[in-house]
């Protein structure tokens, strides 16, 4: 066990460039790391492959894996906004910004707790992603720019994540169709958030749906939200350093 070169990590994909512009990094990382396989996460170079660390939770496979994946993202968002509404920027923000962020906070807490209840209702407790721990020390909750840019990033990432997960849901039974519809019910709310937060950053401009977070399909125009697979999303999330609790995503469906 000594000198164990384990890559167990919350997604030890690449070196997160601390000290650089986090927002920029994240904007890029989701795509730059495309192709990085999460299958590596949790694998070990030495011979204790057969004895995986029991303390590292794996999201699971099939629809359960997708639900746990969504639950992880919602935990991240809810934890972030819990810090936002406890922070000094929010407390002294103007009433419009305050209301928007408070609403978003409430929605994300509801999403998180909904997934907790729903997944627990579907499977036994040991298959449900535990409550994760977070580290938001890189966010300045006293700074409007720091809070809003991080918020926009999380919301845009959420939209791309749900859009990319739709295909991965096995909708061959009624439960699967329910999950697909639920993803649809939530993703449009994340998009409403993204639009609102981005407009706070650049009011009255095209920033609510700007080209730098959209894509083209087939040459028809840059008029579509991104849809990214879990590997890309988790790599990007990992790059933020926000999630402290290690977990793996070795068995998620892939596109």
């Amino acid at each position, binding site marked *: 066990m000594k000198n164990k070169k384990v890559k167990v990590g919350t997604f030890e994909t690449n070196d997160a460039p601390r000290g650089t512009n986090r927002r920029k990094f994240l904007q890029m990382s989701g795509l730059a790391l495309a192709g990085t396989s999460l299958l590596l996460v949790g694998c070990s170079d030495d011979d204790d492959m057969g004895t995986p660390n029991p303390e590292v939770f794996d999201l699971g496979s099939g629809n359960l894996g997708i639900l746990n994946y969504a639950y992880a993202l919602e935990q991240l968002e809810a934890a972030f906004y819990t810090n936002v509404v406890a922070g000094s920027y929010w407390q002294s923000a103007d009433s419009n910004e305050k209301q928007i962020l408070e609403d978003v906070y409430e929605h994300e807490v509801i999403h998180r707790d*909904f997934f907790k209840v*729903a997944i627990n209702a579907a499977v036994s407790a040991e298959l449900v992603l535990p409550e994760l721990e977070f580290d938001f020390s890189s966010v300045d909750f006293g700074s409007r720019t720091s809070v809003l840019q991080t918020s926009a990033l999380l919301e845009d990432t959420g939209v791309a994540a749900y859009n990319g997960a739709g295909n991965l849901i096995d*909708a*061959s039974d009624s439960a699967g169709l329910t999950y697909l519809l639920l993803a649809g019910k939530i*993703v449009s*709310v994340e998009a*409403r958030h993204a639009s609102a937060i981005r407009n706070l950053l650049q009011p009255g401009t095209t920033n609510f749906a700007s080209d730098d977070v959209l894509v083209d399909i*087939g040459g028809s125009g840059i*008029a579509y*939200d991104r849809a990214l697979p879990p590997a890309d999303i988790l790599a990007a999330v990992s790059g933020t350093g926000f999630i402290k609790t290690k977990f793996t995503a070795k068995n998620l469906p892939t596109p």
Partner: protein
Amino acid sequence: MNFIKILDTLSNKELLTETGSRRDSFTKMKNIGKDMALASIPFGLAATSKKTSAATMAMPSAAAQADPLAILNFALTLEYLERNFYAMGVGTAGLIPQADMDVFGLIADHEAAHVDFLVAGITAAGGTPVAEPTFDFTAGGSLDTFNNYQTFMALAQGFEDTGVRAYKGQAGGLADSNDLLQYALQIHSIEARHASQIRRMRGEKGWIVQNDNTLPANFAAIYAGEQNTVQGGVDLSGMFGNVGGDAAVTAAFDEPLTMAEVNAIASIFIV
């Protein structure tokens, strides 16, 4: 070139690392896009995934839904409606204040792209795109849509929120066609960004609380069912008193409309 290939292009390290300019990458992507024939959009209507073989054999649930081509033509009708509405609005001198022109110009561009995309896609899939309807955005003269900016914005909100609900309602019908489902989702969330922006420009929240409705009477049906608090079989009513209560619960989840419900709303504006 399909979307996956576009992603591949994007993930090309050179493109992304080059002088760190993402804007640059997208400019390149635009150019790549221009070279593509629209008709090459790969609309996989056939069973495409591992899940589908099982699904088609054993699954009655999707059978209750319209077939994918019918869904695409349904979506096309809505996109025609939105495209024409915004084109007329942007083209009506004195209607949209200069300060709001960028917002509506962008939305108009998006809707035009969606129309082009769906026409090309339906054709590529062997279907026939529906003819473009004739629209009357005054609903028979009852609305001063292009003379009154407030009315114009109210209709814009109505069309965007209807669009969000319409795409959501068809997700199940596209579940067997992975490409189509993903494209539909990518349009669906853009409509939600539009809706949020327009709602806030009208002094509303960006999200739908309960079934609150500030739109003209023509849109009476548009928020029906948005007050739902039961999600995935779990009744969330009363569970979140400390984070906004039931009002926040209803805002945290958008609800679908059926094709028939959407058509009833759209038909008000179709001659």
